[in-house]
């Protein structure tokens, strides 16, 4: 209850909104007292406009929170929250046109974040494209106690974003692209396979397109290492009320349904919570993650 009371819906303004790679934007939003409640892996529901188009809010992972120096002496520093987003449809197109000072609404932080795992063990983060987002706050925490490696994959070089920020944290990064335009040519999962051979005790954390997550899950299952994944799903409410965002949990049957809400029981799940086979039969959970 105490934690949930900290969740909030607030009206605020944009501090900056910049294109950081072709089609990828970074938006900084004024968010007083947001950081202390936000944990790695959580997300926000962002209201794109105060008009009714688009009607529903859009979910975005929290990339990071931080402080800006205050405008005047004596005032407290300004707290902000940052999201990174890819322009894929109507809502994100409108977002890409927003400016400093534009008024927006944020609901969050929402959902369950990552479990930090055992301090000291190797940590391998696997990010696919925009799926990198929730891994940054995670890395910031993990580097305090463990050796952290980021394996970052994408279609082409444009999809490889924010890697230098991880490096600045002291994270060792490995990049692969399908067209070979940056880093190793091929899928990032082949890098994971190699790394797990080398570090068989690692904790793995992954976020990215569904086919990538499925492959990661199989590799981790084979290597018997713990895996946490952050999922995407179509969402209306973001708080567990509409049941639009469910995924099938392990043991799910029609008679005794074990649906899990991605928004509330996720978006981060331990791999063994999920019924990977049944998930693969459905379209919904990864509608947006296909690209």
């Amino acid at each position, binding site marked *: 209850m105490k934690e949930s009371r900290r969740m909030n819906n607030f009206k605020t303004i944009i501090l900056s909104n910049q294109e950081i790679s072709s089609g990828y934007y970074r938006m900084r939003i004024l968010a007083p007292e947001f950081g202390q409640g936000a944990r790695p892996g959580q997300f926000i529901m962002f209201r794109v406009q105060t008009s009714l188009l688009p*009607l529903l809010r859009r979910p975005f992972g929290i990339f990071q929170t931080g402080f800006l120096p205050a405008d005047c002496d004596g005032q407290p520093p300004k707290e902000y929250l940052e999201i990174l987003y890819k322009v894929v449809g109507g809502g994100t197109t409108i977002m890409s046109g927003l400016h400093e000072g534009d008024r927006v609404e944020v609901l969050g932080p929402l959902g369950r974040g990552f479990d930090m795992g055992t301090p000291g063990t190797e940590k391998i983060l696997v990010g696919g494209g925009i799926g990198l987002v929730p891994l940054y706050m995670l890395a910031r925490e993990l580097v305090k106690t463990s050796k952290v490696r980021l394996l970052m994959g994408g279609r082409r070089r444009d999809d490889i974003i924010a890697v230098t920020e991880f490096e600045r944290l002291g994270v060792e990064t490995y990049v692969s692209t399908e067209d070979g335009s940056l880093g190793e040519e091929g899928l990032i999962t082949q890098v994971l396979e190699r790394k797990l051979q080398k570090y068989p005790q690692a904790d793995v954390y992954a976020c990215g397109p569904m086919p990538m997550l499925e492959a990661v899950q199989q590799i981790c299952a084979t290597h018997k290492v713990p895996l946490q994944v952050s999922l995407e799903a179509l969402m209306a409410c973001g708080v567990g009320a*509409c049941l639009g965002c469910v995924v099938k949990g392990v043991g799910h049957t029609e008679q005794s349904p074990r649906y899990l809400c991605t928004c509330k029981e996720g978006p981060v799940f331990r791999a063994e919570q999920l019924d990977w086979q049944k998930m693969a039969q459905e379209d919904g959970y990864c509608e947006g993650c296909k690209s």
Partner: protein
Amino acid sequence: MTGCAMKTEKNAKRPNLAVEIAGIKLKNPVMPASGTFGYGEEYAPYIDLEQLGAIVTKGLSLNPKAGNPTPRIAETVSGMLNAIGLQNVGVDDFIKYKLPFLREVNTPVIVNFFGNTLEDYGEAAKRLADIPEVAGLELNISCPNVKQGGIVFGTDPKAASEVVNLVRKNSKKPLIVKLTPNVTDITVVARAVEEAGADAICCINTLTGMAVDVKTRKPRLANTTGGLSGPAVRPVAVRMVHQVVQAVKVPVIGVGGIVCAMDALEFLIVGATAVQVGTANFVDPRAMLNVVEGIEAFCIEEGISDIRELIGSIKL
């Protein structure tokens, strides 16, 4: 669009917003629409549930229900489609796990429920009949009757009337019957359920709709079709509430596309005694509170001391 912004003047005499539906006393006429507010707890971190006229639960069935495969939702222009498939924990688990939370909230709880056979409806009503925390029942008859070729109870006045009759027999709780808009003449069904013993009528449920993903050529919902809700449907909802109010004597709860006080006022003016807010909760968890405040501000501005002066005040 604007028109939604209203502010209460300080020091103005506060109008009386209390209404009564089927014997349930509401401090104001605003409550959530079933299925958009979970079991109440989900929104407790965001709004004070005691400022609502009532809480209406997610639709319950006798046994737990898995619901539909995903995708279950799709946004459309100023609306959304849903085919959740009425996933719910079932009446017994609701009583055991969800009701205790609601017991602590000083707001009447209306339980929405449904069945896919006459018997299921009847049995669910029975199990809820003696639960003191349940202030009233909202009977969702927009469900297919699996024993009768899947015809939707609420589209057939006879089937509708049978369900209401049975539920009436099995429970003395105040009974609200929620109608589907997917009918040729909603007044026929309204009159049938009134006659069968409904204490109040709620309309509308969602309009059946469909959307297609042009790239994949698949329906955007796994279930192919789903229920359309949100501001897009409001004109249809207002029309139907208007018609039903003229056709029956029991109070009517208006629902469909309400986002702000101005929207809610349309329903009250055509004669709804209370309103429900659905999809707008997703857009803004404070939507219902904004509606309450806006109605209050409107009453003050117009010199209305009791909301009942407003209800049914349409000038035709």
